[in-house]
């Protein structure tokens, strides 16, 4: 039987690149989707608001794991071949879109009504009003909670292990099955996630405090 040594640790560590790749994919895709959700939720069109509301309710009201299963087992139903990597990516993008969309909706709505009215009074149409007046201000408030949410995205990628995608958690399971040393194996897995997530948490916390201090002035 193998014992846990440097090669085993390096195997788990090497799988971190897939955790990072999946996180990056989820975050970039989720940011684009989230912006669309936030804009739809704050739009004047009742249809756009309705569609976005249902989307958010469904993705915030069901487990991420089930969303992953539905994409993984649902794609073949539509006749698409799918591997665990794409399935996990799509499910994480949809889930992140819903959560970031809701965070950003709050930030957009926090911009005082007078700003919108002033933009309107200046004759700015929708695109210019959002691009030049509302979104740049919302962006500043959104930064801290967005960085904080990135921690959730990184942790969420661990569920891809359940459909067999070899990222850090799955790599840990493989090594554990070969060595039967769960304490050190899952301790190492947890340590890798901690090293990825903790700096983001600290950064988010610092940004939040600086913002609170700026608002208090």
């Amino acid at each position, binding site marked *: 039987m193998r014992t846990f040594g440097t090669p085993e640790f390096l195997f788990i560590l090497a799988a971190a690149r897939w955790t990072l790749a999946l996180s990056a994919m989820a975050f970039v895709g989720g940011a684009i989707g989230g912006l669309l959700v936030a804009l739809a939720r704050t739009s004047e069109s009742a249809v756009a608001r309705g569609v976005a509301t249902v989307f958010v*309710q*469904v993705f915030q*009201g*069901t*487990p*991420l*794991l*089930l*969303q992953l*299963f*539905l994409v993984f*087992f*649902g794609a073949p*139903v*539509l*006749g698409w071949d799918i591997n665990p990597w794409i399935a996990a990516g799509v499910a994480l993008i949809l889930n992140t879109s819903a959560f970031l969309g809701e965070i950003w909706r709050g930030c957009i709505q926090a911009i005082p009504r007078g700003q919108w009215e002033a933009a309107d009074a200046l004759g700015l149409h929708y695109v210019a009003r959002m691009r030049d007046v509302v979104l740049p201000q919302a962006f500043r408030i959104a930064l801290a909670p967005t960085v904080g949410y990135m*921690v959730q995205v990184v*942790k*969420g990628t*661990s*569920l891809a*292990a*359940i459909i067999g995608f070899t990222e850090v*958690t799955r790599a*840990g*399971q493989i090594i*554990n099955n070969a060595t039967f*040393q*769960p*304490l050190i194996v*899952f*301790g190492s*897995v*947890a340590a890798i*996630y*901690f090293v990825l*997530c*903790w700096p983001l*948490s600290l950064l988010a916390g610092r940004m939040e405090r600086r913002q609170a201090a700026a608002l208090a002035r």
Partner: protein
Amino acid sequence: MSLNYSFQFDAVLEAWPLLAKGTWITVQLSLTATVLGLAVAILGAWAKTSGPAPLRWLVNAYIELVRNTPFLVQLFFFFFALPAFGLRWSAYAAALVAMVVNLGAYATEIIRAGIESIPRGQIEAGLALNLKRHQVFRYVILKPALKAIYPALTSQFILLMLSSAVVSAISADDLTSVAANLQSQTFRSFEIYIVVAGIYLALALAFSLLFRFIYGAALDYPDRR
């Protein structure tokens, strides 16, 4: 796009007694973990706001560890690693403990924020009325603090219920475990997961109604906020 797939929900619907049992276990796990996790969080928040320095340091380490590692890894740790110390326990027990530990960390931070929002003068007023220190904590600090952070706290409870689907990874007999068993027997994966996702959605709605009811019964008193 042509759909060459015929949906068959019969096998899923026939299995309703199994699904009902799984749903009940998910509800039971979530509610138990909520109550126990809340107790952990109240102790943690007390330790963080008025405990001695070493205890504060310990609670901080607990919170940071839990919040910066995935729930799935925590679950594997409790289920696979603790038996290495000679502690043998069921998947259900490991799942419950992992959920309590996870919720405890998040809820500690939420309740701490609530406690810190209580004005100093209110606490001093409680002391001036000759309330004991634990009475001040119970009535003057904790209750208004819970009221202030109620929405954040209850959405954390609902998130916990949803993330309990992950405990199916160690086959803890919950709703998602039942679904996984059914799909390996019937091969109707998509239909099963659609139905089960619908059940979770209904549970999330039911939980939020329950929390609204509790708010009305226990916390809906007039204040300055």
